[in-house]
């Protein structure tokens, strides 16, 4: 028998049929963060259109389930390295909408004091590593966080995100291979939203099942519906458990769709309209509301209560952010160095 070329053996690691161990309050928490993420997004778009935002606004519209579900599955000592579409993860980790509003409007009281007008901020106390614009760079960095945790004998898990485009980069490969060799407690979420700016995934890679990359590194992999927040939560919890037990990294491909342009300034004419329409019917928040209603986990009163809390914090934080001044010019040189 002649040696034959290895053909694709796809391993779509499905999730075990186990009951999600979430309490009613936790279901409501997830709902709260999803809505909050959506409302922050809407407000940022509105501020952008009012000319109050300096620079671009990168929306997470349609991808909220991934940010919220992954971050919610982590413990307080875990660390998450966020990317531009992960405002939901920041909110779960304790940032307030005002932080994002002030940051985007470059206000004095924002996390970077008006220096960066985007989501490039984090907080080590909250276990949040700031985004790095060069896509994929967070992979080796979070592998480093995971390595440090092991050396310190901490039960810490590190999680970060890449887009489908980032999987073609060097740091994705080098970081993931290193994490695999060292069996680091790393969870890598590949948010497959179909588009890297204007590049569709078919032009990005010949095998669009990003989960197949897991086999290439000898690590666990799972492909999930990124628009199903419960599935995201469950897959992340399972990966975190594996990581804590020394089982090494996991690559989770969360399939979703970028429902807006790359940023507010991009009208995304290159995306077929039908695709947007198709995915609009699969909105993660609408889907979650349906699930909660069906499972009788959210009464009309409870829904109104959650929405009320969301609106209240949005209103308060918008007011607070708009009242914050711009930084004083003479402070410009101050926090450049540590």
């Amino acid at each position, binding site marked *: 028998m002649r*040696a034959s070329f*290895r053909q694709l053996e796809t391993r779509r690691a499905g999730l075990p049929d186990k009951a999600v161990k979430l309490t009613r309050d936790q279901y409501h928490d997830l709902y709260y963060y999803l809505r909050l993420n959506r409302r922050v997004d809407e407000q940022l778009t509105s501020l952008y259109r009012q000319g109050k935002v300096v620079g671009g606004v990168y929306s997470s519209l349609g991808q909220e389930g991934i940010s919220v579900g992954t971050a919610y599955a982590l413990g307080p000592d875990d660390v998450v390295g966020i990317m531009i579409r992960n405002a939901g993860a920041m909110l779960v980790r304790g940032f307030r909408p005002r932080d994002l509003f002030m940051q985007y409007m470059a206000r004095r009281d924002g996390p970077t004091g008006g220096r960066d007008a985007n989501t490039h901020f984090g907080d080590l106390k909250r276990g949040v590593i700031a985004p790095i614009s060069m896509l994929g760079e967070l992979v080796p960095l979070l592998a480093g966080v995971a390595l440090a945790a092991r050396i310190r004998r901490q039960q810490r898990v590190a999680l970060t995100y890449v887009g489908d485009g980032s999987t073609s980069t060097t740091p994705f490969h*080098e970081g993931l*291979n290193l994490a*695999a*060799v060292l069996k680091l407690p790393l969870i890598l979420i590949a948010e497959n939203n179909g588009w890297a700016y204007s590049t569709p995934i078919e032009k990005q*890679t*010949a095998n669009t099942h990003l989960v197949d990359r897991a086999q*290439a590194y*000898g690590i666990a992999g799972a492909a999930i519906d990124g628009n199903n927040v419960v599935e995201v939560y469950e897959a992340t919890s399972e990966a975190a458990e594996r990581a804590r037990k020394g089982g090494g990294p996991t690559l989770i491909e969360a399939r979703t769709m970028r429902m807006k342009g790359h940023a507010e300034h991009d009208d995304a004419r290159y995306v077929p309209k039908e695709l947007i329409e198709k995915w609009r019917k699969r909105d993660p928040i609408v889907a979650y509301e349906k699930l909660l209603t069906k499972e009788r986990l959210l009464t009309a009163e409870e829904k109104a209560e959650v929405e009320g809390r969301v609106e209240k914090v949005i209103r308060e934080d918008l007011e607070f952010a708009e009242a914050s001044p711009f930084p004083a010019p003479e402070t410009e040189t101050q926090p450049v160095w540590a």
Partner: protein
Amino acid sequence: MPGLKAATIAKKVVEPDVKTLERMLYYLKLTREAEQLLERVLYRQGKIVGGVYVGRGQEAIAVGSAIQLVEGDVVFPSHRDFAAWIIRGFTLRDVFLNWLGRAHGPTRGRENTNHFGDVRRGLIPVISPLGDTCPLACGTALVQKQRARGNVTLVHFGEGTTSRGDVHEAMNLAAVWTLPVIFICNNNAYAYSTPTRQQYAVKDLSARAPAYGMPGMTIDGNDVLKVYDAARQAIKRARAGKGPSFIECKTFRMTGHSAHDAAQYVPKELFEMAAKDDPLARFEKELVAMKIVDSKRLGQLEQQIAKEIDEAVAFAESSSLPEGADAVKGVYCEAGCVWQATGV
């Protein structure tokens, strides 16, 4: 030897014709003898300035693959693929002149290892930062695809190199653009002193290929016929416009990283096991069993090779070193230089 007998090793291959078998034997023996002289004689005599990097134990990979190339094809050898140069038409004189830093060598004494090539012969020089040749190979393959003459590009690299982003980006690009490039991983078990268990967490590196959407194969790289067959399949595929392939050739570096490295970090047993699995000895035995050669013919071949090498070394040693005043020449493309002449 760890992982050498991979599960995917073939039992039977499509045999090359007798003439090709004899040529392969010639190139294997020539490589072994010439590198023996470079690494263990000329280097130790202090005649070579710098390091000597040889492919002892892994000669079958370059021989079994490069021998199938035709005009217009391109090979990017690694520093351990000596035979690729000879097969692509460089002479032994070229090789020794370069290693000895002589004025009439391919780099005119500027470079004293094997960082030389010739676009007309379809051999692109080694690039020392490993992995950098992979995206370059995508470039030549893209040109080949555009010219549509059915040409292909082979690129060799070690298993250590697979950890680099260049390889990743290149394999992804080659697959998405359906480029006629064959990625050949010479997995010789050590990246300098790093063993494979510290390099990657998969059993076979061919597991990488499906992730990019290309076929991959892991073979016994010490069996020149298996290398030949795997390369044949991949080349056929590429010539037919079906895109890239990945071939992992499991082998063993039967020496140090270079002549200055005693490789004390490699367990002795591994060297002993590798010696029993010597690709040259295996192929000789096989050809004798197939009655393609006998001991008399082997003896003649050895004499012929020794004569060729002696002649080339004598020529190189009697050749002059470059003049000090010429040091500034050849830095930039001059009139008549190959890169200009071919419009590359």
